[in-house]
């Protein structure tokens, strides 16, 4: 089975789904499920397309990193579509295009092709956010997304002018073997960083996120905050680890941007009174921490953090968006006592929130402990201190939120109905968060070698 199918099947299904609106939702679910199964049958290595060998043609690269990221993204995508397929069946074709774009982003080994998939996934994302019925926010997202893509392409073209290649591995090899000083690479790398930073919600390129996630629903919220965020983090990780390899003043600037993002994200979440705003600012802070870990070479714990955040944020956004939709308000005070009638949902929300905070018994704690240890061993004590302080702030606002959602002061009880499919998803994710929080052995089976780009370059150029 070729990795190309992971992109081609959703794209073909998207075209077919336009022909018959009735089969579109069925096609969406079938393709989503088929893609998950297909990932297990894709062999590792480079997939050459059209017979053009590397670096002349577009190629895909499938390694353990790609497999893990594809499994996470496709798995979560299937869950979100399953929960929303009836309510948002008109979005089926767009969701299929989104799936093709996201899989392409995770698989491609060509930097221009990455731009194309960024735009495909981006256009699908803008259309998904139209379900929020806030066209001005969608317009802002479109403008910011297009601007980000333009910056990325500009940086890439400067690199092409310098090295004459667009292939990721060939570009890395050309940079490593050339005598070009790193200072000459600062401009293109920084533009590409900004371009991807827009989609990754990094400060200060995330002006679109507030409008989109503040008004999100059960489809757009988890899709943008969990699935798109995870995909862009994985892509960012691949590029930071292999291509950018920040150093010198650029490393300082990027680190400062990310630290400011962590601090401001947590501060804004602390100051928010709306549930979706709290989650949105928390997401921004977590995205900055993830990229910070990739920048510091702590790849495997960054990958685990992306996965844990994607799972937790999926639960948090689904609960809050479902409740906000029924109550028509997402002020925390309006949601008081939400879990009094929904114990299982409350338990899932609590476990997800405590895992994001990094409390013991949950997978978030294991991840936080490990990446803080690695950062401390790397001498990054200032970053460790700042993350710990931000964790305290995070703890305060999440505990406040949990107290309000669990207990009310004898006021009128609110009753939000979560159907069985929601509860099943929450139960599975809660179980995963607790199991991997207690039984940590499987997490030790992978290391930073999960990303095999450098090994592949060795094989190609040095035999």
């Amino acid at each position, binding site marked *: 089975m070729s990795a190309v199918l992971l992109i081609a099947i959703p794209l073909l299904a998207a075209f077919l789904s336009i022909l018959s609106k009735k089969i579109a939702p069925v096609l969406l679910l079938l393709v989503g499920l088929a893609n998950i199964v297909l990932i297990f049958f894709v062999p590792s290595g480079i997939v050459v397309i059209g017979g053009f060998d590397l670096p002349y043609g577009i190629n895909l690269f499938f390694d353990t990193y790609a497999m893990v990221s594809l499994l996470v993204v496709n798995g979560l995508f299937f869950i979100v579509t399953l929960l929303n397929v009836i309510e948002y069946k008109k979005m089926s074709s767009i969701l299929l295009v989104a799936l093709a774009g996201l899989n392409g982003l995770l698989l491609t080994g060509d930097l221009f092709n990455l731009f194309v998939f960024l735009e495909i996934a981006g256009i699908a994302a803008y259309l998904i956010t139209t379900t929020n019925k806030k*066209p*001005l926010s969608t317009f802002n997202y479109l403008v910011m997304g297009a601007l980000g893509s333009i910056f990325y392409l500009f940086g890439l073209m400067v690199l092409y002018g310098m090295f004459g290649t667009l292939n990721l591995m060939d570009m890395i090899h050309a940079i490593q073997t050339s005598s070009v000083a790193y200072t000459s690479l600062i401009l293109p790398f920084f533009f590409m960083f900004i371009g991807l930073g827009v989609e990754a919600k990094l400060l200060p390129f995330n002006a679109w996120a507030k409008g989109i996630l503040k008004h999100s629903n059960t489809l757009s919220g988890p899709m943008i905050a969990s699935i798109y965020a995870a995909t862009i983090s994985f892509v960012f990780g691949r590029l930071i680890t292999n291509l950018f390899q920040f150093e010198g003043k650029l490393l300082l600037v990027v680190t400062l941007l990310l630290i400011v993002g962590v601090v401001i994200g947590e501060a804004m979440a602390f100051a928010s009174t709306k549930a979706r705003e709290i989650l949105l600012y928390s997401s921004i802070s977590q995205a900055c921490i993830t990229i910070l870990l990739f920048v510091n070479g702590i790849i495997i714990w960054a990958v685990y953090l992306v996965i844990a955040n994607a799972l937790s944020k999926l639960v948090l956004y689904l609960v809050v968006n479902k409740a906000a939709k029924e109550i028509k308000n997402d002020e925390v005070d309006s949601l008081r006592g939400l879990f009094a009638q929904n114990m299982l949902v409350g338990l899932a929300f609590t476990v997800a929130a405590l895992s994001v905070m990094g409390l013991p018994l949950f997978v978030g704690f294991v991840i936080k402990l490990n990446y803080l240890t690695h950062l401390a061993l790397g001498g990054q004590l200032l970053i460790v201190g700042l993350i710990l302080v931000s964790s305290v702030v995070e703890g305060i606002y999440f505990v406040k939120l949990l107290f309000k959602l669990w207990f009310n002061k004898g006021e009128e009880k609110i009753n939000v109905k979560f159907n069985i499919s929601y509860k099943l998803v929450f139960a599975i994710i809660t179980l995963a968060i607790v199991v991997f929080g207690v039984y940590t052995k499987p997490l030790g089976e992978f290391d930073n070698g999960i990303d095999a780009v450098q090994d592949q370059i060795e094989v190609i150029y040095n035999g």
Partner: protein
Amino acid sequence: MIQYAAILLMMIGLYGLLTNRNVVKIVISLNVLEIGLNIFIISIGFVYNGIAPIITSTNNSSALLFVDPLPQALVLTAIVIGVGTTALGLAIVKNIFSKYKTLEIDEMEEN
């Protein structure tokens, strides 16, 4: 020289994006920025005194000075994507106008 013109066009587009409060003008600014970028990409493949990269009966030697054809192929893709984004942007602008009866961002309220 042409690269300076492209970057100038990009700066004009960026200035338009930052200063305009009218959604149609913002879409136009985005297009100016994209055109600037497309010209920049084309300029990367430019070779002084180079000929079109097509082998013909008269130009049949690989020793001839051809311009780089790859940026031209890339620009074609970038133009198509840009048109798609613009079309979607204008569709959203239509939605905005239907909802708010104005194209000025300052006159809209979206809380």
